[in-house]
């Protein structure tokens, strides 16, 4: 079974440019999450999809970030325009809601290392 895949693995862009990250969750996983880890610090929650619906986007930093999950399959996270402080590793994770809310274990992708210069 394929795991969570993310593309690209690395992205280097200049301030003001646009970058789109993609995540393909494990097949059959309705829950999809985006997280960000900056400078080796804590892993911060960005948002959560259940199928194609955004259930919680309380962690999105500002309106320069836009996440979509059309059709409830893969998801994209677009940053436009990118700022220096957006640099970090963006992780996608998915889970299968078969243990009840608040008990799912997350499967993480390898992440996208974003560097904004």
């Amino acid at each position, binding site marked *: 079974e394929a795991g969570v895949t993310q593309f690209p693995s690395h992205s280097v862009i200049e301030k003001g440019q646009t970058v789109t990250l993609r995540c393909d969750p494990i097949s059959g996983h309705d829950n999809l999450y985006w997280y960000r880890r900056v400078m080796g610090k*804590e*892993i911060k929650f960005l948002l959560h999809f259940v199928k194609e619906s955004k*259930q919680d986007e309380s962690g999105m930093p500002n309106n320069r970030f836009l996440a979509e999950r059309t059709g409830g399959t893969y998801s994209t996270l677009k940053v436009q325009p990118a700022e220096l402080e957006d640099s970090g590793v963006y992780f996608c994770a998915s889970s299968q*809601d078969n243990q009840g*809310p*608040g*008990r*799912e274990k997350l499967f993480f992708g390898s*992440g996208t290392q974003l560097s904004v210069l």
Partner: protein
Amino acid sequence: GQQVMQIPQYQHVQEGEDFTTYCNSSTTLSNIQWYKQRPGGHPVFLIQLVKSGEVKKQKRLTFQFGEAKKNSSLHITATQTTDVGTYFCAIHKGEYGNKLVFGAGTILRVKS
């Protein structure tokens, strides 16, 4: 802000020594999860604790959930170089309880 405190931030041990990381919450938790992230890697689920006072073991790793379900610990006996990485605790928050919030993590380095 952070809703679970994790300490220490960093620990450097000699191979063979033990290691412990702790997580504390001001509120009672329904459960707590632990993840490990190797350098350059991604977080990998280790275990979930649900019951008050629960203790689970995975080889040299021992996980505990406090009686009041407000704290948890991960203890590694006789560390090996393969144990290096960052260990995170994580708790569920949010209206639907399925927003996973991570502690700051404890970075473990092992000297051989």
